[in-house]
C-alpha cells in the first residue's frame, strides 16, 4: 500500500520558511501571492493490505516521529 502523511504547522505558529519563500516569490514577480506556509509530505510504502491496520500504523508513525505534535498537525491518506 502507498500512503501519504502530510504534516503542516498549526495555525498561529510562526513559519519563518514560509515567510522567506513568500518574500522570494514576491520579488520574483509571481503574481498575486499573498501568503505561503510550508509543510512536509512523507510518501510511505507499506507491506500488507489491511486498510485499518495500515491507517493505525501511519497514525502511530506520525505521532511518534513524523510530526512534532506540539506545533504541527498531520493528515494521513491512503493513496492505493
Amino acid at each position, binding site marked *: 500500500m502507498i500512503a501519504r502523511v502530510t504534516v503542516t504547522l498549526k495555525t498561529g505558529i510562526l513559519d519563518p*520558511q514560509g515567510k522567506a519563500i513568500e518574500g522570494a516569490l514576491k520579488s520574483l514577480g509571481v503574481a498575486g501571492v499573498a501568503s505561503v506556509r*510550508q509543510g512536509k509530505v512523507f510518501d510511505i510504502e507499506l507491506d500488507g493490505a489491511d486498510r485499518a491496520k495500515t491507517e493505525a500504523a501511519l497514525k502511530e508513525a506520525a505521532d511518534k516521529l513524523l510530526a512534532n505534535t506540539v506545533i504541527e498537525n498531520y493528515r494521513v491518506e491512503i493513496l492505493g
Partner: protein
Amino acid sequence: MKAAVLVFPGINRERDMARTLRLVSGKEPAMVWHAETALPAKTDLVVIPGGFSYGDYLRCGAIAARAPIMDAVQAHAAKGGLVLAVCNGFQIACEAGLLPGVLMRNARLKFICRDLYLRVEHSDSPFTRGYNAGQVVKVPAAHGEGNYTADTDTIVRLEQDGRVLFRYAAPDGTLDPDWNFNGSVNSIAGITNEKGNVLGMMPHPENHVEGAIGATDGRGLFAGLVDTLGKAA
C-alpha cells in the same frame, strides 16, 4: 587581483572570506549587495561565501540563486571570469546552474563542524595551483547539507574531465568512507564547471590561513588565485 564578495541576507562568512582575501592578496575585496545588478568594474574574482542565505529555508541556496546580482555573476562566469563558491556559496552556485548537481542533507543528517582532510586531485587549475597534486590539506567544514550528488552521466563527466578538484580523504590521502563525513558521491568535496573557472566546495579554506588560529592549509588556494590574477591588479 580584484575580488568581489557577494552578500546575501543571511550570509555569515563574508567577513571571514574578506579578511582572508585581504590577508593573502593584500587588497580589500569589494562587498557586493545581492540587490545590485552589476559587479564592480574590473572584478576578476567573484566569491560567493558561506552562511545561511535566506535562512537556508526552502532549499539551501535556492532563494539567493535567484537574486538580482546573479545575472552579473553568470555573465562574469560565461566570459571566463573566476568564481569561488564556498559552502552555502557552492549550494547557491548549484541552484543557479553555474555548477551541476545538488547538495543533499549530510548522510548522517546532522550539521557537523570539524577539521577534515582533503586530497587535492590535481594542481592544473587556478584554484589549486598553490598545491601539489595528491597533497592532503587540513581544512574545516561546517555544514548540514554538503552531501554532493548528481546523475550518473554528470558524475562520469566530472570524473573524466578532471573537474573534481578536492575529495574527502584520510590523513594519508586514501579514500575511505569513514572520512567521507557527509556521504558525497565519490567523496567529492569540490568541483569545477566545464570551463574550469567556477569552483564550488563545501569546506572552508578561508578559515585555515593563520597559524595562530589553527592551521594554514587553506592558504594555498588563495595564494594560487593571487598568483593567477596578479597581486597588484
